[in-house]
């Protein structure tokens, strides 16, 4: 009984108080024919034994030098972030329904909302969603609810949006009679050609998704796309990397009046890669649309004595109040991840975050200039890129990836499955954590793989 404190004497006294001979009697309302026998589970392990097991398992994971991004980024995480986040008072608390006993979590969430609103230049932020892909799905649903001008439920979804995000959107909005229209990309620049939107001009479109940075690492013409959305009565959904926003124009300033909704994955802000999760999704919007925003919201108010304090608010949007008519079914979100992200942003500050973004960008420039100097390797797109880029070589991408793995490098993400038209292309990412030596080594290994096969 690893975590049960009862002594034999306790059990005797409690059973006596209940007037039953054994705990078994407490299950006598369950029909006997439903009871299962002993479960076939491995035997119990002591902490020392399970530690040995998990260390061995962790050791089976191969630590490769990471040049992969594609939605999950290795950034340096200050030691203080998880030292504080792991405190039991954050780790083992519930959703802050009892506001007076949860001021710590509530204030963190308010500060988080403030930081995200400022980073995206939007009015409000919710307290998190599950991850980037689900935040996009929720944004699409929100856009349809919000857009009073449109009756079409048609969404323009560029192919430059992460293919994993697009498949999640399909699953989640699949039963809602929405039409997802794929927007092609310019094979030369690797971004949505605003001119390609012309065939949709004047038609009834509920929303346009604008990824910045896009899946290929390329920077989209966000101003033109946002202006088009506004002119055509479509909600502009900005899908953004929050790290990049320290350097790039924030969604609230795109076009004439800014995007309407900003969403994305918060993982770059202090969350470990951890095999794909837990990360957190974020969503920000204009004040006018706040009643359509899904997820928890924290507001600042005052107590009976006029002292400032924090509480969950505008809960009439949520499932525990509105049930079948809620803006979303989300209940549990990614609270602890948001705590980490808040501490991360506080430690980095505006300048620290900008420098991480800039260093990542410059490292990627450096890698691409070394790679394009290698005979047989080429950059695929001409559009400006941020901290990811697509290249291809004359050898199959899978062989390049295997070859790099043998040399201790996770080379990136192969694009052939989702973009067969690009040939043997690899999406590569360099963050601030890679040194100049790492970068040169990557290019050297590519050259050697191309020369010696």
């Amino acid at each position: 009984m690893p975590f049960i404190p009862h002594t034999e004497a306790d059990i005797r006294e409690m059973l006596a108080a209940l007037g039953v001979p054994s705990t078994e009697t407490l299950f006598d309302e369950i029909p006997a024919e439903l009871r299962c026998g002993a479960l076939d589970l491995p035997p119990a392990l002591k902490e020392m034994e399970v530690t040995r097991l998990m260390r061995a398992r962790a050791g089976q994971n191969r630590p490769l030098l990471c040049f992969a991004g594609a939605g999950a980024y290795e950034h340096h995480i200050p030691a203080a972030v998880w030292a504080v986040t792991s405190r039991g008072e954050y780790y083992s608390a519930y959703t802050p329904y009892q506001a007076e006993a949860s001021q710590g979590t509530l204030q963190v969430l308010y500060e988080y909302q403030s930081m995200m609103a400022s980073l995206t230049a939007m009015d409000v932020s919710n307290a998190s969603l599950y991850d980037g892909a689900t935040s996009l799905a929720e944004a699409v649903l929100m856009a349809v609810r919000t857009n009073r001008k449109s009756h079409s439920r048609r969404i323009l979804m560029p192919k430059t949006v992460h293919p994993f995000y697009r498949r999640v959107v399909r699953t989640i909005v699949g039963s809602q009679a929405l039409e997802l229209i794929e927007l092609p990309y310019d094979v030369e620049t690797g971004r949505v050609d605003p001119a390609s939107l012309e065939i949709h001009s004047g038609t009834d479109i509920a929303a346009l998704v604008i990824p910045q940075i896009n899946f290929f690492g390329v920077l989209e013409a966000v101003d033109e796309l946002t202006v088009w959305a506004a002119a055509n009565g479509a909600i502009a959904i900005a899908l953004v990397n929050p790290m990049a926003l320290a350097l790039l124009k924030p969604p609230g300033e795109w076009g004439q009046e800014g995007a309407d909704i900003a969403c994305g994955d918060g993982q770059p802000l202090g969350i470990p890669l951890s095999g794909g999760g837990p990360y957190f999704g974020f969503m920000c919007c204009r004040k006018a649309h706040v009643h359509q925003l899904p997820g928890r919201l924290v507001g600042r108010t005052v107590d009976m004595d006029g002292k400032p304090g924090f509480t969950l608010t505008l809960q009439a949007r949520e499932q525990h109040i509105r049930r079948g008519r809620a803006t979303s079914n989300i209940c549990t979100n990614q609270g602890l991840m948001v705590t980490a992200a808040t501490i991360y942003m506080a430690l980095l500050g505006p300048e620290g975050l900008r420098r991480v973004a800039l260093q990542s960008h410059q490292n990627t420039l450096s890698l691409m200039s070394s790679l394009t100097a290698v005979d047989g390797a080429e950059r695929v797109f001409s559009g400006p890129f941020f901290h990811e880029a697509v290249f291809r070589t004359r050898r199959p991408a899978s062989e390049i990836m295997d070859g790099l793995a043998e040399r201790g490098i996770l080379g990136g993400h192969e694009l052939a499955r989702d973009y067969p038209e690009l040939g043997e292309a690899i999406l590569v990412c360099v963050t601030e954590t890679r040194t100049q030596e790492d970068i040169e080594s990557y290019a050297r290994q590519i050259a050697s793989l191309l020369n010696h096969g």
Partner: protein
Amino acid sequence: MLIFDRSRRGRAAHAQLLPESGESPAIPDYLLRKTRPALPEVSELDAVRHYTRLSQQNYSIDTQFYPLGSCTMKYNPKVCHDLASLPGFLNTHPLGLERTGQGTLAGLYELQEMLAEITGMAGVSLACAAGAQGEFAGVAMIRAYHRLRDDLARTEMLVPDAAHGTNPASASMGGFRVREVATDADGNVDLTALELAVGPQTAGIMLTNPSTLGVFDQHIRAIADIVHRAGGLLYYDGANLNAIAGKVRPGDMGFDVIHLNLHKTFSTPHGGGGPGAGPVGVGDKLLPFLPLPVIVKDGSRYRMLTETERPHSIGHLVTFAGNVGVLLRAYVYIRMLGHEGLERVAEFSTLNANYLLKKLVEAGFEPAFPQRRAAHEFIITLKRLAKEHHVTALDFAKRLLDYGVHAPTVYFPLLIPECFLIEPTETESKEALDAFVRIMAEILKEAETDPDRLKSAPHSLPVRRLDEVRAARHPDLAYKSE
């Protein structure tokens, strides 16, 4: 004081500040940011002290008794956090998982198998990020099942009136019309009402058992028969699995699809609101529809099934493989329990609940279902206090905070007036339960003699009762610097 109030222009956590590396000429000027985001400028100690102090304003399992019904606030073992945080797990990129994450995948695969055994289901997918997403996945599988059979008239999902709010919300999100089913006087689903509600339009029913009323529905096989006969499927909301783990399996009760809340039964942390994990399990009928990824073992290698191998899958629900770090914590927890340990979870959570109920009744509290055994949680109603002393369940809850315990769940389920849903969990000692009873009795006395003491509670927390009306009427959702 907000972190922004501690900010001073030009201050920084210098150990985190990379050297200035000049401009970014490769990015066109019109795409660059011109204004600084209003993030705080503080030293590392400023940030550490600020967020450490804030943490001290929280009640948590580590610091307080937290009998929050329906949430299973049991001890979250430290070792689970430690082991899931080993660098080998933390530094694995999701896109390298099959190539570089065999150790992670081994744990996830075994977790799938163990959860299938615990629930009596044929297959499990770990993809869903939380219970509500698991519900959505379950609903989507039910929809996909009927559609594949061309049974398109099944547009209605039955939900008992006692259900969690996420159930009807998930059903709507999955494209179903929600139809409520009444509860009988014993807290079971009203079978007559159910017979009247089912028909060719019934896609399925979403049930929690033990229900949110804290009692085990003895007619579960009859419910399963009625719904199955009508052509519908049974969905099990695993929120209350703590009460029956190792004793009864949803698969044996007749359920076709389930979700589990690993942050409840399997002791992963609630984190002040998440992250959770909501694996789904299915019987043979729904196996082809499971969300991806599903992890399989080929020889000694683990890999994830693709859309081509599972063409009828409802698809992906999250970007990558789910909340892997949470899943690893649950894996460690189950390995430490083994089958005996798991069965004892049900036994002792039930023993604690029944003991606490008995002691509270002796202390003068009114149970909602005196004729029933408690499962792992139970309901008391404070309607007499409300009537005689104008003290509400909310007032009582706020006063509990003053005594250093977190309040039970209040006003849920909606069926019982002025209710407390109390779930002590198995990790609390007899002394903790006895202390809670003494506090409850003390407050009961106060309610009768000095009701204002309760109405103006809490008195000893960082803030007193908050003005929620003002928060909603004049939303202040983000700090604006002057």
